[in-house]
C-alpha cells in the first residue's frame, strides 16, 4: 500500500518538474540560439545580431505563425495532434472577408470570424463527438474548403480595392497587418501577445483548462469524471479556428488579395512550432508560453541562418534536422522522467 502512495507523490513531483521543464526547456533552446548569435557576432561572422531592430524583426516575422500556433496548440493539448485544415481556413476566411468588404469593414470582419468558427465547429463536432481521426478529418476539411473556394470563386483572386469603392474600409483592411502602435508594435505582434497570454491563462488558470488537460491525457477517465469531453474537444477546435481566422485576416491584409493559395504551409509550420515548444502529441502536456518559445526558436533559427548567408536549400536541411533533434531530445527527456511519450 505504502509503495503505491510513494509512487503517486513521485509522479506528482515529476509532473511539476517536467511542467516547468516543458516551458523552460524550449527557452533554454532559444537562449542557446541567442548565445550562438552573440558568439557569432563576437567572432565577427555576423553583425547587428543583438540589436533592438533585429530582435524586433524576429518577433515580427513569426507573429502570424505564433497566432496560428497559439490556437492550434489547444488541439494538440486536447490530444488531437494538429489541425491540418489551417491553410484553407486562412484562405477561405481571407477571401470571405474581402468579398464582404463591400458591406463595410466590420461586417467583413464579423463574417470572416463567423465563417472560421463554423469550420472549427464542424471539425470539433466530427472529431469530438464522432471521434474521426483528427489528422485525416482535418485534411478532408482542408480539401472541402479548398473545393468551396475554387467552386465559388472559380479561379479568381479578389482585391479589396476592386471589390469596393469604400476607401475607408479598404484602408482599415490594409492596416490589419500594417498598423503599428507607437510606430513600433505591429498589430499582429500585439494580437499574438494577447492571444498567447489569454491562451496561457485559459490553459493553466481556469477549470476549462484543467478539463482540457484531463481530456487530452486520458479521455476515458475525463469522461468518467463527468466532463463533457465532446464539448471540450469541440471548443478546442473552435479556438484553433478562431486564431487561424485572425491570422488569415492579417495574411490577406498583407498580401492585399483574397485567393485560394493564401496560407499554404501554415499547417506544418504551426505543428513544428508547437512540437518544438515542448507540447507533445500525446496531449495534456506543455503550455502556450512554451509554444511561443517554439515560435521564437524558429524565428531565431531562420534569422541566424540568413545572417550567416546560408542558402535556401541548405536551410531546409538544417531546419528539418534541428526539428527532429529537438523533438527527439524532448521525447527522451520525458521518457527518462518516466513519462513516456506517444
Amino acid at each position: 500500500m505504502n509503495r503505491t502512495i510513494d509512487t503517486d507523490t513521485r509522479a506528482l513531483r515529476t509532473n511539476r518538474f517536467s511542467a516547468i521543464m516543458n516551458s523552460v526547456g524550449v527557452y533554454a533552446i532559444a537562449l542557446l540560439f541567442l548565445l550562438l548569435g552573440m558568439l557569432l557576432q563576437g567572432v565577427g561572422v555576423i553583425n547587428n545580431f543583438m540589436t533592438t531592430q533585429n530582435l524586433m524583426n524576429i518577433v515580427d516575422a513569426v507573429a502570424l505563425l505564433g497566432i496560428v500556433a497559439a490556437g492550434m496548440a489547444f488541439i494538440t493539448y486536447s490530444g488531437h495532434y494538429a489541425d491540418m485544415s489551417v491553410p484553407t481556413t486562412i484562405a477561405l476566411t481571407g477571401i470571405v472577408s474581402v468579398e464582404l468588404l463591400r458591406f463595410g469593414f466590420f461586417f467583413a470582419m464579423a463574417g470572416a470570424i463567423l465563417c472560421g468558427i463554423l469550420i472549427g465547429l464542424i471539425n470539433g463536432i466530427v472529431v469530438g463527438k464522432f471521434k474521426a481521426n483528427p489528422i485525416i478529418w482535418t485534411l478532408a476539411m482542408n480539401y472541402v474548403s479548398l473545393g468551396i473556394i475554387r467552386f465559388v470563386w472559380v479561379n479568381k483572386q479578389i482585391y479589396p480595392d476592386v471589390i469596393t469603392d469604400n476607401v475607408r474600409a479598404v484602408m482599415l483592411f490594409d492596416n490589419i497587418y500594417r498598423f503599428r502602435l507607437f510606430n513600433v508594435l505591429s498589430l499582429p505582434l500585439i494580437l499574438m501577445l494577447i492571444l498567447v497570454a489569454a491562451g496561457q491563462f485559459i490553459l493553466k488558470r481556469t477549470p476549462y483548462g484543467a478539463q482540457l488537460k484531463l481530456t487530452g491525457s486520458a479521455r476515458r477517465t475525463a469522461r468518467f469524471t463527468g466532463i463533457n469531453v465532446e464539448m471540450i474537444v469541440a471548443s478546442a477546435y473552435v479556438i484553433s479556428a478562431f486564431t487561424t481566422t485572425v491570422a488569415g485576416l492579417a495574411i490577406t491584409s498583407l498580401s492585399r488579395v483574397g485567393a485560394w493559395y493564401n496560407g499554404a504551409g501554415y499547417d506544418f509550420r504551426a505543428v513544428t512550432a508547437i512540437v518544438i515548444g515542448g507540447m507533445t502529441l500525446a496531449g495534456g502536456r506543455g503550455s502556450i508560453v512554451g509554444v511561443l518559445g517554439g515560435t521564437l526558436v524558429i524565428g531565431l533559427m531562420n534569422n541566424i541562418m540568413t545572417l550567416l548567408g546560408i542558402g535556401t536549400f541548405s536551410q531546409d536541411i538544417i531546419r528539418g534536422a534541428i526539428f527532429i533533434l529537438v523533438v527527439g531530445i524532448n521525447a527522451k527527456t520525458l521518457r527518462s522522467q518516466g513519462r513516456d511519450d506517444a
Partner: protein
Amino acid sequence: MKRQVRMLFLVMVLLVSTAVLFAQGGKATGPSAADAAANLEASLKVDTSVLKAADGQPLLKLSADVPKIPTRPANPEALPDTNPLRWFDMEYAGWDAQKTNIPASPKSGAIGKRITFIVHGDHPWTTACSLGAQKVADAYGIQLKVLSPNWDLAVQNQMIDQAINERPDMLLLIPLDATTAVQQARRVNQAGIPLILFNTLPTAEAMNYAITWTGPDDFGQMRKLARVFADELRARNPGAKELGIAYVQHAPGGSPYFARSYGPVSELAGYAPEVVTLDMQAPGFEADRTMQLVSDWLTRFGPRLKGIFAADDSAQALGIAEALKKAGRADVVVVAAGNSKIGMDMVTDGSLFAITYQTAEGDGALAVQTAADWFNGKELPNRRNLPQHIITKKDVADFYPPQW
C-alpha cells in the same frame, strides 16, 4: 435455365457494345478538303491586329527586338555564373532547332479548326491567358478547348494523351516543366498532331518536335530590367564604388528560377560591374517569409544593400516593401518581374521602381494566332517572342486596368 439464357444474352450485348465503343476511339477525323481553298481565302482576310487586351494595349504584338544569337560555347556549364554564355542553353533554346517529323501546313485556312489548348494550372494569369486565346479563336471561328492540369505533371501527360486520342487539328501546350517537355513533345510528334509550345521555354531538344514556340523571352526581359535597375541604382547613389544588391528568387525547378536571378547577374556583370550580388534566396511566394528575409538582409548588410531584384511583383514585392518601410529604407531600389495588379499599384505608389510588361492575354493570343498562321500556310520562325517592355511610374497608367 431461363435465367442462364438471359445472362448469356446480357453478356453478349455487353461484349458487342464494348467492341463498338472501343472501335470508336483513336480515329482521325478527316479534314474537309473540298472547302480548303475557300477557307484559306476567308481565313487570310481575318484581321486580328485590331483586338485589344483588357489593359487597352493591342492584344497581338511581336517583339521588335530580334535577338543576336551568339555562338554556343563548347561547355556552357563550365563557365562562371556571371558569364552570359553560361545560360546559353536556357536563353537561346530552340533558335537552332533540328526539326524532326514536323507535319506540313495543310494550307486549308484556320476557320472552324479544332484546337486543344493545354495550360499549366489554374491561376488568374492562366484565366487571362485563356481569355486572350479565346479572343483570337473567336475572330477565326476556331473551336478552342482549354484544359488545365492544375500543376500536376501526371495529369498534364494524361491530358496530352487524351488530346492525341481526340486528334484535334492542333495542340497548343504550356509545358509544366522545361525538361519533361521533351517526352511530351515527342509523343505528340509521333502521333502526327501539329504542336506549338508556348509560354514556358522548354529545353532545346523539345523544340525539335514542335512547329514553333511562342512566348516571353524571360532572359531578355530580365536583362532589360537589370539595365533599368542599374541605371536607377547609379542615379540614386552617384559615384558609388560598390552597389550591393540581393535577389529574391523564384521557386526552384524551372527556368524563371534561373532567368530571374542569373539573367540579371550575368547582365550586370558586364553592364554595371560595380553592382555586387550580396545574397540570393528563394523564400517562396509568401509575403511574410519574404519580409523576414529582407529584414534579415537589412540587418546583415545595413547600408550596403542598395537594391533588391524580386522574381515576383505581388506577394514577394509586398513583403519587401513592408520590410523596407519598417526599417525606414526608402532609398533601396526594388524592381520585380511580373505584371500583376499589385505590382502596378506598387509602381504607382513608388514602392516598386519598375516591373516587366508581361501580357497574359497576349501570351495566349499569340499562340492561337501562330496556329492560325500555320493553317494559313505562313512561314514561321523557330521562336516567336512577345514584346519586351519595362513599366515604370512614367507609363504605368497606360497599362490600367490590369489584366488580372
